[in-house]
């Protein structure tokens, strides 16, 4: 929401700088985004008067002007290339050392040898356009001296053309012998066609004595380029552009230009929270400013004279069959409208608020919307068939071309304004093209209504056309505001002389809001805020905001739909008492024991172990593309593909909730690989989202996801990390098994399921080369997926001290030869089985194949540690145990001592 400070000052006088104003408003709840001084870029530009003009001695299109910029005895000389300037014109003068919008600096200089002490400005140089000053439109006559034939061989007009020479038909060459002003953009010009003088009234502004022009003897007019069917390139200097000739009342030479063109205003941009639609208006913000600066709020009650011919009830009939969506519909009529540009003050205010001026009637509706916060619409009465306005739901499939020229296909959830036969507007959003205010509009209906916010919001969203009006309606507007707003519009019509207002108002009230009352509980408010604000001060603040306080009862103003509870009153008090004046205290009361849960502690432990192993933590998106399941080679009918699917995703890549962390890890490994990072070791404790939770929600399991690639990575380095994790949680009875069904994402010969007892914790291994290929990675990738819940269950008991051994151990190395297919795990199991209580440790230290070992067999060597807790072992005891171990190896695994 933009706010013109000039406009604001009409309702409340605030003498703060922009910075002070912004800070104070922000701290009282109206957050200021930015402030702008509209004239910040313009300096040292003044109003000047053209005292005399001479043609440049060295140019056929430039003029040397003497300009009065204050003291008539000390004119300044300025050279201009524009042809629409005449002696006596008031013009904007950028003096020596002046600045213009866009960071342009003007300094004195010479133009083709003639000194020029500044610049005369056109509209665009001042940051304006013709909509700001409609009278500054320039009509250019074709000046024959400026003619440049497109084809030098075949000129349409001979270079030596003289007055009286015929150009075509009734058009002859003629010389301008005198030029005098006959009003705004109107000139009395005397032309001589070589035989006689003729007087011509012309809007062409670029004529001067001595110019040779094309004169139409039949219509007695001076030809423009269009009249001659000439192209701009043929008359390069006869352009519809030039100096902005000022026609403002009461200006004098030397006046600062900024107030003249409305650049003396300051605009403040607010971020208004959705609970305060009342602040989307000048009056609403003025009320806040008055309370913030403790200043008087000066409101105005519109006064309409009326008296136009006809009776409103005969001219117009309004029906609201969709009364549930239209709590109130207020309308008035204006007749004999004269469509014209609105006055400068109105255009300036609209422009400052970011609204483009169009014409007086449309501008009035916008002006009232900005001032009152009540969206308005104006229909051309001619096109309201049957003199009837019907507020109804659209038919399914009904079409309406809106003002922006788009054809909208409607449905029965949408609200339209219709006449007897068809829709003429989309309620609360945009009018229809078929009833638009146009140049020759005569009678106008002003609509000031209140529509259901949700309906407007849904319609605007469905049609993709959020407008200023719909943005206001969707937040819920003050039902009581429609009447003052429509009166204000009619008042402005009369003020602008834009038409005659018909007496009376059509006002259909389908819902009358009851004034809301609340109890003022000063103690409760202080209790909530932790303050000691007096009741009187609370009353003062509330009254300043137009709440009515009688005894203990507070009546909430109709525009404050957001105030419903004591806490809302507390906020009003706090805002103007000052949030920063509320003391800072620390919490009292019952102490609570804070801390982490067991699961949170485990999560931290897992992170610590991974980082100790050299793995970096990553964060990946929880949503993936369904095609990622293909990339990790899951079967098309794999049950794990059943995922939570987002119905309105940003894109396919983020459209389902992952049921596996693998694609996320692979994506990040791939990214690092593509970044040419030589090695990467990563982990994440992330969630997967499985169907089947309570209330239709997901079962959100956490997974410890580990991934790596690089020169020091192989299956066993990944296994080492898994073992470290399991050791850290003191898991017992850990085993690794080849999956009974091959896991399609992993290398079939380099993948293991991880068990703690009978509990499957997860899987790890080398990623299947085909999966790596799907990711475009030509390297061995290693991943692990460990279920967090299972790890939580597998957690072992806390450590208990075991006395250190008092007696020495006996160590024995054994090497056994067995079939290739026998696993180390099986051999270890046999050793443990064969070893009696004396066997304390078994450690693999070598696997050998080759000379001395038969083909298809391998030699596996273990280091055994044997010890008794109560005595030194004798060699015989140790030998007996080793014997038992060797027997077990042979029996269980067919392994014999090498």
């Amino acid at each position: 929401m933009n706010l013109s400070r000039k406009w604001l000052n009409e309702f409340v006088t605030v003498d703060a700088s922009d910075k002070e104003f912004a800070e104070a408003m922000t701290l009282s709840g109206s957050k200021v985004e930015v402030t702008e001084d509209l004239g910040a870029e313009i300096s040292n530009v003044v109003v000047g008067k053209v005292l005399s003009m001479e043609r440049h001695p060295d140019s056929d299109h430039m003029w040397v002007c003497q300009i009065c910029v204050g003291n008539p005895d000390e004119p300044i000389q300025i050279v201009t290339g524009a042809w629409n300037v005449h002696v006596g014109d008031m013009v904007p003068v950028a003096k020596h050392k002046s600045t213009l919008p866009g960071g342009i600096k003007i300094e004195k200089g010479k133009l083709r040898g003639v000194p020029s002490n500044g610049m005369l400005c056109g509209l665009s140089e001042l940051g304006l356009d013709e909509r700001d000053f409609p009278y500054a439109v320039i009509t250019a006559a074709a000046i024959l001296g400026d003619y440049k034939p497109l084809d030098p061989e075949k000129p349409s007009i001979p270079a030596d053309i003289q007055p009286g020479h015929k150009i075509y038909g009734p058009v002859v060459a003629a010389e301008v012998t005198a030029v005098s002003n006959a009003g705004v953009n109107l000139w009395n010009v005397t032309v001589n066609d070589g035989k006689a003088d003729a007087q011509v009234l012309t809007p062409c502004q670029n004529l001067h004595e001595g110019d040779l022009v094309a004169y139409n003897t039949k219509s007695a007019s001076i030809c423009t380029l269009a009249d001659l069917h000439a192209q701009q390139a043929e008359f390069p200097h006869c352009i519809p552009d030039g100096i902005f000739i000022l026609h403002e009342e009461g200006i004098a030479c030397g006046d600062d230009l900024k107030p003249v063109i409305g650049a003396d205003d300051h605009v403040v941009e607010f971020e208004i929270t959705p609970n305060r639609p009342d602040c989307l208006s000048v009056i609403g913000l003025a009320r806040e400013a008055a309370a913030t600066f403790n200043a008087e709020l000066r409101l105005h009650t519109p006064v309409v004279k009326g008296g136009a011919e006809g009776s409103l009830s005969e001219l117009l009939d309004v029906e609201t069959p969709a009364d549930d969506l239209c709590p109130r519909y207020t309308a008035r009529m204006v007749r004999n409208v004269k469509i014209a540009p609105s006055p400068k003050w109105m255009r300036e205010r609209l422009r400052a608020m970011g609204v483009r001026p169009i014409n007086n009637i449309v501008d009035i509706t916008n002006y009232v919307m900005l001032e009152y916060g009540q969206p308005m619409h104006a229909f051309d009465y001619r096109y309201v068939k049957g003199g009837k306005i019907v507020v109804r739901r659209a038919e399914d499939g009904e079409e309406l071309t809106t003002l922006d020229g788009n054809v909208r296909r409607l449905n029965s959830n949408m609200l339209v304004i219709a006449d007897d036969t068809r829709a003429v507007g989309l309620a609360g959003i945009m009018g229809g093209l078929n009833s638009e205010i146009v140049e020759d509009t005569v009678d106008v209906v002003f609509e000031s209504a209140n529509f259901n916010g949700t309906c407007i919001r849904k319609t605007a969203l469905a049609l993709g056309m959020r407008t200023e009006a719909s943005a206001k309606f969707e937040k819920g507007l003050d039902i009581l505001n429609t009447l003052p707003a429509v009166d204000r519009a009619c008042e402005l019509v009369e003020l602008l002389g834009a038409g005659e207002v018909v007496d009376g108002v059509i006002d259909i009230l389908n819902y009358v809001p009851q004034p809301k009352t609340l109890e003022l509980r000063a103690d409760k408010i202080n209790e909530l805020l932790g303050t000691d604000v007096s009741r009187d001060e609370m009353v003062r603040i509330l009254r300043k905001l137009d709440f009515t306080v009688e005894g203990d009862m507070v009546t909430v103003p109709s525009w404050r739909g957001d105030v419903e509870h004591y806490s809302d009153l507390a906020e009003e008090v706090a805002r103007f008492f000052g949030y920063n004046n509320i003391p800072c205290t620390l919490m009292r009361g019952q102490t609570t024991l804070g801390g982490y849960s067991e699961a949170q502690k485990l999560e931290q432990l897992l992170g610590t172990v991974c980082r100790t192993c050299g793995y970096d933590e990553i964060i990946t998106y929880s949503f993936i593309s369904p095609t990622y399941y293909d990339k990790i080679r899951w079967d098309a009918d794999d049950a794990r593909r059943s995922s939570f699917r987002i119905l309105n995703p940003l894109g396919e890549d983020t459209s389902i909730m992952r049921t596996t962390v693998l694609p996320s890890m692979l994506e990040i490994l791939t990214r690092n690989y593509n970044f040419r990072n030589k090695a990467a070791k990563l982990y994440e404790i992330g969630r997967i989202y499985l169907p089947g939770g309570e209330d239709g929600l997901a079962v959100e399991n956490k997974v410890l996801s580990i991934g790596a690639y690089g020169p020091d990575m192989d299956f066993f380095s990944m296994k080492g990390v898994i073992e470290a994790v399991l050791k850290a949680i003191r898991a017992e009875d850990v085993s690794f098994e080849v999956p009974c069904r091959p896991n399609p994402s992993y290398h079939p010969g380099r993948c293991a399921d991880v068990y703690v007892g009978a509990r499957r914790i997860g899987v790890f291994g080398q990623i299947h080369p085909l999966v790596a290929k799907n990711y475009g990675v030509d390297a061995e990738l290693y991943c692990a997926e460990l279920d967090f819940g299972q790890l939580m269950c597998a957690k072992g008991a806390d450590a208990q001290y075991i006395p250190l051994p008092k007696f020495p151990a006996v160590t024995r190395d054994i090497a056994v030869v067995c079939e290739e297919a026998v696993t180390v795990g099986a051999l270890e199991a046999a050793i443990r089985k064969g070893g009696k209580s004396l066997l304390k440790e078994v450690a693999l230290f070598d696997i050998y194949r080759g000379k001395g070992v038969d083909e298809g067999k391998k030699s596996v060597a273990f280091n055994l540690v044997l010890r008794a807790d109560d005595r030194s072992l004798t060699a015989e005891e140790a030998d007996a145990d080793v014997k038992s171990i060797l027997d077990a190896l042979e029996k269980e695994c067919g392994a014999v001592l090498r």
Partner: protein
Amino acid sequence: MKEQLAKIRAEALAAFQAARDASELDALRVQYLGKKGELTGVLKMMGKLSAEERPAMGQLANEVRAALEQAIEVTSQKLSEAALVQQLKDEALDVTIPGTQVKMGHKHPMYIALDEIKDIFIGMGFTVLDGPEVELAEYNFDRLNAEEGHPSRDWSDTFYFDEDSRVMLRSQTSPMQVRAMDSMELPIRIVAPGRVYRKDEVDATHSPMFHQVEGMVIDKGVTMADLKGTLNTVVEQLYGKGTKTRFRPHHFPFTEPSCEMDVQCHKCGGVGCPTCKGEGWIELLGAGMIHPKVLQMAGIDTEIYSGWAFGIGLERTAMRRFKIADLRLIFENDIRFLEQF
């Protein structure tokens, strides 16, 4: 014999003196003091001496032996010291050669920031809660006083899993307030960090998935002054003692009064600069007193209990903490980024 002893003594001492290392010295020891050594040889001749001469000569011989042994001891000590000096000299290293690398893993910067926040609140008696990301609109919106028609419920803003807009990806951590109210005994002090989701395209400051930390206190007599005091304490621990803050009115459906908390810009000290967009302040978090409707919907008596809540965006906190300019880096997970923290 006396002369012989003197000669041995003089010769041996000179020889010891000249010994260059331990083995030479040992050879000399054998040469003079060994069983077949020169001194032993002289002593063997003692028997030939007269009884009168013997004691004096014996004493002299013992003196010579003692002197030689003493000299060997001293020389040996000297030699071993010299050998050690030489050894240490030989073992000297170029200490500027880099150490053997130990590859340590790194915590993600966002979790570093989160852990700091969690630790501060745990120190104040808060419990850390975890909750579902696939959430009911009932918890994410209705129970938080964001009624049907609230703009954040639009399909253009929030991700939904069903046509009835019943199940969604939570758009804030605030549903944890409701879940805590429903499941915990009063008084409650919780923080609930986690992932949240909004329909924003990825750019330097937006991501469809990001993280928040929710905090909530419900107890008898909890005031807005407590909210301010607590959050100021937190900010001082995060950003240093004396960090200036301010509170601005704002609007959230589930708090009333609501506020936003700003910290004074660290770059310009409040004067205004590009970092703070000229305002001198940087928005840090949203907070407020829990709306009576929200408490009442959870069956909490607002005549006895009150509470406050806040929500803070974690990415922005981490980005400010570590001066990370682009949010995309957080989710890119380039190890060259990760290993800076």
